[in-house]
């Protein structure tokens, strides 16, 4: 509160923030390249993608309901009342878990039926030679255009909401398209006919989905979001907490800033042919000389050869979506986690992280060396 007016008093402070956001974007792109397969689509794991779309929207509200009493313990005037109520209504919680499982199973069954309908529809579309790259480009263009229009038109508070909506919409499109691709593959191999889908395969997928959603909902989403919410409640009620926000408005402001920085960077610092808005120009690479293409590949290396049409085309959508997800993790950590003391921080850095990373490097080096897969010296 004290620093708030000072922080935004001069333009020179903006440099710090721009540097920070650029660093976040940079770090997230690097994590995506090193750990999340870069610009490749999640091959063979459309169930996983499906799961990542569904879990926040289904599991989190239910988990919030289940853990609501425990989160309200922290509110001072309600604390004793809620503790008493928890003691009294403790038998409800397993029932709530059962309800969650039932709702999940119903939703997943509905989704399987919807998949079936979609497949028949897409089979119809395949007869009229709907091409892959057009769908890719449509997804990318919708993502970029809707985001940028909303970014300029809406106020801050709505922007995050619309951003989430567009991300969800694009993920849904990608899911539909992924089902379509799977279908094409199976039809080519003559493994699958639409009329007799394997019932037991469906059931296996369903059980895995239910299990994974339950595990991820229990492990990941409750601590993160729940603690976020709890910190908000604690701050409003006037407890001294080490979390950052003192106001919901400024909290939203801090949430969206890195995203804004990301889109600024997308528009300003990338050349025009690396912008996702230009993803639909397939034949652009043939008009450039070789050096320009090399520069393009150096810049973001997105160049995919389509064996059907014998052309090279660009895909930015998966990469952008993955980077967005990592940025979201960075943003959420601001709200969810608490601050370290400086000596603790330095101790963590020098006494825990450095030895651990050294140990892991030695470990991986010995593994690689023992398997004889050491990189050749050029």
């Amino acid at each position, binding site marked *: 509160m004290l620093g*708030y007016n000072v922080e935004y008093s001069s333009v020179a402070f903006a440099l710090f923030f721009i540097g920070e956001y650029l660093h976040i974007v940079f770090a997230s792109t690097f994590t995506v390249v090193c750990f999340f397969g870069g610009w490749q689509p999640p091959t063979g794991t459309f169930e996983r993608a499906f799961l990542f779309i569904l879990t926040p929207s289904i599991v989190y509200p239910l988990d919030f309901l289940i853990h609501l009493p425990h989160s309200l313990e922290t509110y001072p005037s309600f604390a004793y009342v809620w503790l008493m109520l928890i003691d009294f209504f403790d038998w409800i919680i397993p029932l709530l878990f059962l309800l969650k499982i039932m709702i999940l199973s119903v939703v997943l069954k509905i989704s399987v039926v919807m998949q079936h309908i979609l497949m028949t529809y897409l089979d119809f579309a395949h007869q009229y030679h709907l091409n892959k790259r057009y769908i890719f480009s449509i997804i990318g263009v919708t993502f970029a255009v809707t985001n940028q229009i909303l970014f300029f038109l809406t106020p801050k508070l709505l922007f995050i909401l619309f951003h989430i909506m567009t991300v969800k919409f694009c993920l849904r499109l990608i899911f539909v398209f992924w089902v379509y691709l799977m279908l094409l593959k199976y039809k080519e191999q003559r493994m699958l006919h639409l009329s007799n889908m394997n019932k037991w395969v469906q059931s296996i997928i369903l059980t895995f989905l239910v299990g994974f959603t339950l595990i991820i909902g229990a492990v990941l989403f409750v601590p993160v979001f729940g603690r976020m919410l709890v910190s908000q409640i604690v701050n409003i009620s006037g407890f001294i907490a080490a979390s950052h926000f003192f106001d919901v408005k400024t909290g939203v402001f801090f949430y969206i800033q890195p995203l804004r920085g990301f889109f600024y960077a997308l528009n300003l610092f990338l050349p025009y042919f690396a912008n996702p808005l230009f993803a639909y120009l397939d034949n652009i690479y043939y008009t450039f000389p070789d050096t320009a293409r090399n520069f393009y590949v150096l810049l973001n290396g997105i160049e995919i050869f389509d064996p059907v049409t014998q052309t090279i085309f660009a895909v930015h959508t998966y990469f952008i979506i993955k980077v967005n997800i990592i940025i979201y993790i960075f943003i959420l950590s601001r709200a969810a986690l608490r*601050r370290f003391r400086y000596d603790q921080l330095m101790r963590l850095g020098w006494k825990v992280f450095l030895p651990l990373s050294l140990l892991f490097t030695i470990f991986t080096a010995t593994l690689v060396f023992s398997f004889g897969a050491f990189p050749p010296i050029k």
Partner: protein
Amino acid sequence: MRCLLSGVYGILISGWASNSKYAFLGALRSAAQMVSYEVSTGLILISILLVVGSLEIKCVVDFQEHTWLSFSFSHLFLLFMISALAETNRAPFDLPEAEGELVARL
């Protein structure tokens, strides 16, 4: 050998440059923080590059065609995420801009 250009060195050099900028502006604390976590990120990256066997970004991505490295090297991924968080001087590690604590005691 142009693949060396597109590899990690750009990232490392940029990190070093941002360090120098912060130091130039007088935020020695954040510079120390960034340097201390830069070491661990660099070591993690070295281990990943050892596994992949190439410095080219395209090779690193092609290596993960079937399984992402976040699944096979999840311990490295966790370390990398936390140290990247600390490097960005943000959220739980944002001591240089922690107003309340700067005023209060530290």
